[in-house]
């Protein structure tokens, strides 16, 4: 296994043609191996394309398929998952869970019409900064060749905690008066309104 991977040349400043598709890729890294590898690539000033935006998790085992699907649904063209090599996980064996989730996820997204190459798995140890940079370059070019995914904006699930009472009041609350009670008697709904 080569430890020196060729890194795609970064585009020269200011000469990138406006029409080249620049993929936007989300990368999940683990705190102990692949994130450190990314840091190492930085310290070594290894150059690679700017298309991957990294998220740090403590472990690749934290990777929830929800995160991957969220990335696609928010407009990412591809997702890269990376972690420690099998057998070297800082938390012993959690990257195997990540591997299995990745494989199942890949089959499912393929059935949904997303090319499996848009979900990539890269193992990188903390010492493999150059290699990780090369993998990022490779993934970027593969996704560039696939073109944009451009998943439409869906019904955004608002994960901010909604103050439900306030929301109720904001929509007018019982402005129309309390609803008539079943059976004809019209009780006072002081219990659930602010009146």
């Amino acid at each position, binding site marked *: 296994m080569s430890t020196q991977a060729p890194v795609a040349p970064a585009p020269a400043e200011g000469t990138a043609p406006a029409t080249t598709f620049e993929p936007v890729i989300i990368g999940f890294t683990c705190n102990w191996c692949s994130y450190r590898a990314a840091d190492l690539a930085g310290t070594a000033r290894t150059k690679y394309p700017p298309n991957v935006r990294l998220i740090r998790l403590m472990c690749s085992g934290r990777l929830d398929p*929800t995160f991957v699907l*969220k990335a*696609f649904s928010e407009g990412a063209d591809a997702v890269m998952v990376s972690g420690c090599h099998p057998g070297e996980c800082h938390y012993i064996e959690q990257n*195997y869970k990540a591997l299995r989730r990745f*494989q199942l996820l890949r089959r499912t997204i393929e059935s949904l019409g997303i090319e499996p190459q848009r979900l990539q798995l890269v193992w990188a140890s903390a010492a493999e900064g150059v290699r990780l940079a090369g993998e990022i370059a490779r993934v970027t070019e593969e996704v560039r060749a696939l073109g944009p995914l451009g998943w439409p904006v869906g019904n955004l699930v608002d994960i901010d905690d909604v103050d439900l009472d306030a929301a109720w009041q904001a929509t007018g609350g019982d402005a129309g008066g309390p609803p008539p009670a079943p059976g004809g008697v019209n009780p006072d709904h002081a219990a659930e309104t602010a009146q």
Partner: protein
Amino acid sequence: MSPTAGSTGGANATKPKLAIFGAASCGGCDVAIVNIHEHIVDVANAFEIVLWPTVMDGKYSDIETMADGEITITLVSGSMRTDETVHLSKLLRRKSKFMVAFGSCASEGCIPGLANLSSRKQIIDTAFSTTSTDNPDGIRPIWECEVPEGILHLPEFEPVLRTLDQVVEVDYTIPGCPPESNQIWAALEAVVKALNGTGPLPPKGSVLGAGDSTVCDECARKRDVKKINRFVRIQQVAGFDPEICLLEQGLPCNGPATRNGCGALCPAVSAPCIGCYGAAEGVIDYGARLMSAYASVVEATTPEEIDKVLDGIPDPVGQFYRFSLANSLLRSGRSAWQNDGE
């Protein structure tokens, strides 16, 4: 909740109004409502039913002429598959105080949601040109056409099926395909009590008629740690142990990810839960939870071994998103929105 004295007959005008509307639905939710048996009388006594196309005649103009918020509670089952259902949902939303997504179609798209794996053209072509359809001239529906009486508008097929809360704001959800009748009654009873002031109004956004946990909570089978080395289809194995967890026996049972409230009826007869009660509390993508859980407990460490086990689930979308595709994070397959019109 028994009717109070003096509420017979002509007291209709003071009873809260109830609308029950089936959008693109199979009618099963209506049947489930009727299955509350004698409690249906309580419902009829407690409410004035102003719309229930399955059961009684009514016209859209009855609704259109109502005041905003005049209907106290509207139960909408079925999904938003045509522009008519979208329109009516919006209309009913305006006229209703509380809007309830009733059943799996309204809350998560249900089985019709799987049509989101295909584009409109694919769906219509399939419906109008399979061997069971006698259509020698290759007729396809036209949304607008001129007839002697004027312009005829057919409800247009939406390119992507949506759930009720993707079209209007929803107050409550009652999950299930259909919701179990005892749960329907429990939810209705709670609503009646709230309107009476004898019970609390559930917070907006609540799920009614279901529990806070998942089906495993109600399943009587014995559960151990999970180490799955194969997935099988129910027709592949002669008999399943009636006492042990189905997932442990290799049947992909969605119980661990599916909201409880149904009484775990299916696992009780060795049928794996297929997930009709929808996602657990707070979950934003049901399929993702299942994929994560199943993959986590597979006993294999190399890609090849893992693939062998996963081959036991030949249709992942059907397994993980059978009911919930339309309100998953991706909501549809790619061709539904990318190939619309092709």
